[in-house]
């Protein structure tokens, strides 16, 4: 009996040790976004981005990154008594779909904040809907200056909507930053400017052009393309005949890739330069091998310069998302986390519970949110713009975007 008892104890200890080990291994790989708090309140963070269509690479990166932030908040029990969930809606990069999504999110009382959208043109259709409902919106990707500073932003800045914030830098800086690089560093003095007629593309092309001219550069041609088109051979021929040393394109990668390819095929072996909208790996797939030397500016510092971003990249991979986090993943994570921080402020100030006017309170709290995020210090100025204004120029080398210059706006 005695030896049996000892053996039984041994077995029990072994089972205990193994059980302990097994329990310890469970905390990675749980992809649920609503686990962790059991009981208490549920707060939904809406996500609006293109989840299907040409721009879905960026849109899915936004959705997944917001989900990652929510997972982390729940796991940490960051807001006591509150479990966060995301509700992701597809705007297909269409303003009308975005507006419908905004109305749907407003109608759901558990939604206390929204991450998105990707496109400035979509944001224009959503802003008023959210603002009327005092539902805070934090875009990780909109760069159109008018969204925060009003239509007459170049002469007099007036914030149109108190409920709108963004973590991305505006084209008021991005366009001139690109112009400075192209003129001074790349030494290109003659440019052909093309845009896709959309809010983002035409706005970015305009801010680039203005600065390029101020520096003494010459615009040797301009064209507008149809975003639905794939054949740009006529424009490519015009570029070839213009004698331009560089092409600036205001638009997004689904058109920028084929445009770059067709310009080179027409015989103009000159770089195509664009903004954050073309800085996706899909660009290289569409543009082909001759894209080497093409340039893109993008908001933020290179990921490899930011220890916080490295952690994000590692966590993103560990979470097992199918899609890449793309250009705005870090900004989407920070946008979601800004909402989580604002909810925490409101709950803490209300004795640990959500107040009845939670949406208005969260929107108000957002103005003073400040934390060290994936992309650096996250806070907002009086217009709702990010105070962290870093930009990077990337060049295509060996089939990848490689950072070649970084800048910080400190004005």
């Amino acid at each position, binding site marked *: 009996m005695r030896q049996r008892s*000892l053996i039984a104890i*041994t077995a029990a200890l072994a089972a205990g040790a193994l059980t302990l*080990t097994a329990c310890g*291994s469970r905390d*990675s790989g749980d992809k649920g976004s609503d686990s962790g708090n059991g009981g208490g309140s549920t707060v939904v963070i809406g996500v609006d981005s293109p989840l299907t269509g040409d721009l879905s690479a960026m849109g899915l990166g936004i959705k997944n990154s917001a989900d990652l932030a929510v997972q982390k908040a729940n796991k940490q029990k960051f807001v006591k008594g509150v479990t966060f969930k995301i509700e992701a809606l597809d705007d297909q990069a269409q303003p009308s779909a975005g507006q419908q999504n905004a109305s749907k999110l407003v109608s759901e009382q558990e939604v206390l904040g929204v991450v998105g959208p990707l496109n400035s043109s979509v944001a224009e259709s959503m802003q008023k809907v959210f603002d009327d409902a005092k539902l805070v919106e934090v875009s990780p990707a909109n760069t159109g200056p008018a969204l925060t500073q009003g239509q007459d932003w170049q002469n007099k800045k007036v914030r149109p909507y108190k409920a709108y914030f963004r973590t991305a830098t505006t084209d008021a800086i991005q366009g001139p930053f690109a112009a*400075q690089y192209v003129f001074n560093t790349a030494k290109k003095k003659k440019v052909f400017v093309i845009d896709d007629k959309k809010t983002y593309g035409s706005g970015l092309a305009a801010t680039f052009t203005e600065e390029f001219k101020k520096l003494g550069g010459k615009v040797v041609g301009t064209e507008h393309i149809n975003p639905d088109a794939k054949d740009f051979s006529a424009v490519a021929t015009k570029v070839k005949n213009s004698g331009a040393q560089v092409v600036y394109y205001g638009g997004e990668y689904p058109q920028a890739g084929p445009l770059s390819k067709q310009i080179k095929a027409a015989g103009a072996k000159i770089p195509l330069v664009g903004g954050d909208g073309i800085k996706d790996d899909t660009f290289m797939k569409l543009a082909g091998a001759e894209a080497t030397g093409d340039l893109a500016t993008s908001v933020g510092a290179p990921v490899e310069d930011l220890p916080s971003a490295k952690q994000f990249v590692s966590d993103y991979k560990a979470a097992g998302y199918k899609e890449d986090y793309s250009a705005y993943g870090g900004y989407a994570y920070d946008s979601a986390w800004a909402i989580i921080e604002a909810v925490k402020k409101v709950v803490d100030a209300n004795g640990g519970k959500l107040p009845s006017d939670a949406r208005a309170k969260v929107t108000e709290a957002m103005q003073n949110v400040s934390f060290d995020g994936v992309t650096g210090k996250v806070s907002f100025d009086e217009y709702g713009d990010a105070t962290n204004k870093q930009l990077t120029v990337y060049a295509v080398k060996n089939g990848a975007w490689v950072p070649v210059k970084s800048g910080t706006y400190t004005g």
Partner: protein
Amino acid sequence: MSGIGPPEPGEGTRAWESRREEDAPAPLAARYARRRRIAAALAAAAVLLSGGGYLYATRPQQPTAHARRPYPQVPYPAQVVDLTYLDARPAPAGAPPHSFSFAVLVSVASGPPVTVTRVIQPYAGLSVTTDPPAPFRIRVDSARKITITMHVTECGKAPRNAGLPFLDVTLRNTRAIQEQSFIPGPHYAQDLSHALEVACSNRNR
């Protein structure tokens, strides 16, 4: 890899085999056999505990906030240095004609001291010197006021109306050497344009 499967058996988990041995009859020398079994069971328990402890200690897990930074990582210099434009200043005595100056404040937010090894601007037709002359060092929480003096070497190549002019600053700390463009904003742009207009106006040539 996010999925963690069942834990692999660690060293010592073969102790289960000794249980099978126990089932075998040992009619002779039963007393010694009993002692051996007790000793074997205790040894197995010790091995199992140590094996389980090892597995537990080395289990896959999400890194905690502390575990993420096992050692304090020195930040890249460009991520901790701020350059703020202050105002236009008269050119120092002894500066060549067609010179003008600005004051900027350079600070380091965290980490080890940062050395500014060079300050330039990207426009043809302008040269730059600083006071103190580069290289100079800046420590955390001790911002330094730097006077930047520009000399117009060729008015035709100087940007009279740049919207967001840069200052390119080379920074070095124990982590890296980086060149960062600082864009001091609209006040710097206005003061630079004004200074260039004055320096390159006919009466000053």
